[in-house]
């Protein structure tokens, strides 16, 4: 695309190819390119570089859901529930987020709500040590809602103002596991007024079209306030975020850029589009 000097068939094909290879999706990419061709004709845009600029701006606007900050007001007990399918980076992202919130002066407690997977609580405990945040855990096989309930009690008695609750990875197609998640959310809401104030879906940037279905089902089950897109330090571009933004209007709040404690950045739609369409 950078080398192109005229708006010929090759240009439009290459643009569509770039989008598809970034996981924007076959149908979505075709639609974006068709729309852009019409716009260019009507607006009499002749320069490929100008087309790309207009496209980046338009798509960034669709992805921009305004304020990407967390809704975590001071003076009340805030519960952040972290959900998603297996292996996307939930536990690691919680560690990074706790570190960020601690640096902002908040007092954070972590709830080891994954009571199923081998060494899930131990993994979160190590993150808690790295961050300097207390971790509330039970034994493997315990009721996840009970762990989160205990973490809320601990937060109240210790004067902590944020509880970040880890949950077990679960495939959205497993009805019983989604029911378990709904129950966890209900219990949080019953215990703390207005909670969970944030429900973050953690998506893996290397995931293809299935990420859209994940977002749909998780949104329907527990309602989502934001998305964390992880592993953006790889070669995958996370293009499926565009369809998710467009259809479901869930704001992308954070980007995971590595395995380290500081590898979490606030989502920037302009930067995202720059990387997608160079």
């Amino acid at each position, binding site marked *: 695309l950078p080398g192109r000097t005229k708006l010929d068939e090759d240009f439009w094909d290459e643009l569509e190819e770039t989008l598809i290879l970034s996981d924007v999706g076959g149908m979505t990419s075709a639609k974006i390119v068709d729309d852009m061709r019409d716009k260019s004709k009507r607006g009499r845009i002749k320069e490929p570089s100008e087309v790309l600029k207009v496209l980046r701006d338009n798509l960034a606007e669709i992805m921009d859901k305004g304020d990407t900050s967390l809704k975590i007001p001071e003076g009340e007990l805030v519960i952040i529930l972290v959900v998603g399918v*297996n292996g996307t980076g939930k536990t690691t992202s919680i560690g990074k987020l706790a570190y960020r919130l601690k640096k902002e002066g908040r007092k954070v407690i972590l709830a080891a709500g994954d009571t199923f997977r081998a*060494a899930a609580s131990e993994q979160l405990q190590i993150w808690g040590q790295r961050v300097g945040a207390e971790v509330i855990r039970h034994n493997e096989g315990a009721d996840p809602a009970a762990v989160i309930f205990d973490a809320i009690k601990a937060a109240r008695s210790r004067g902590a103002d944020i509880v970040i609750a880890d949950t077990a990875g679960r495939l959205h197609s*497993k009805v019983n596991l989604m029911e378990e998640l709904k129950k966890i959310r209900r219990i949080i809401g019953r215990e703390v007024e207005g909670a969970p104030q944030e429900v973050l879906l953690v998506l893996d940037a290397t995931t*293809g079209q299935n990420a859209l279905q994940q977002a749909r089902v998780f949104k329907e089950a527990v309602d989502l306030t934001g998305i964390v897109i992880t592993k953006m330090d790889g070669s995958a571009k996370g293009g499926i975020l565009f369809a998710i933004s467009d259809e479901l209007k869930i704001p992308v709040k954070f980007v995971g850029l590595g395995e380290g404690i500081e590898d979490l950045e606030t989502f920037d739609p302009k930067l995202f589009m720059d990387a997608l369409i160079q």
Partner: protein
Amino acid sequence: SLQERLGEIFRKLRGRGKLTEDDVNAVLREVRMALLEADVNLNVVREFTKKVKEKAVGEAVWKSLTPGQLVIKYVRDELVNLMGGDEPRLEMSQDPPTVIMMVGLHGSGKTTSSAKLARYLKSKGRHPMLVAADLHRPAAITQLQVLGKQIDVPVFAMGAQEKPLSVARAGLKAAISQGNDVVIMDTAGRLHIDQELMDELKEVRDYVKPHEVLLVVDAMTGQDAVNIAEQFNTQIGVDGIVLSKLDGDARGGAALSVRFVTGKPIKFIGVGEKTDALEIFHPDRLVSRILG
């Protein structure tokens, strides 16, 4: 579904007489879109639809009462041809222990698949040992130890401060002295574009000389699957693929991309979180899934 869309196209083309280049392209566009939506890599889709085009322009399609179904049959046959072929078996060494190394991206399912494989081999009368060579992820060693305990398979581990190469060497020695005939080595998740970590993996592979390097790939992987497979295969050398999380509803097109780019067979599929959730790969089932 692809069937319905093709049926629609052929209905419009009926009664027109001869099939033009444009007509064929319209058909192929539908096939292409279905494969893209199933996460098959774009370049693989292009190569693949070229092959189907040669068949689709033939007389048989035009003479058929159900040309849409015939095109699907060509697509399906070509997919099975690509995915299937060899009998995906694990190569057991004549000079034990057989060493199997599990590699792949973060969170793809390596640790869980290592335990599943150990359980499977144990059920076949082998005496596997698991080696906890992921020294990077917090509690990775503990994770493998907990799984090993669940399936009653020994886990070789050292302190978390050790280097993967030291653990691999010592693990292999321990397996030999304890008479284990299979060693399954779990490794840390790594990016195919992280040269330092790819070099680390090469170093471990060079020392351990695995009989099987299994690339664990998440079934929901998108277009990036070709890059991952390409790098692991050219830099490390891959003998087979484990496609994990097939119990989800991802179409699994990544499997086609990985097969296309490496030529290596899918040896196992992961169909659940428990250690018994490992199955032998059946190409026809995956093809039906990809075609939706």
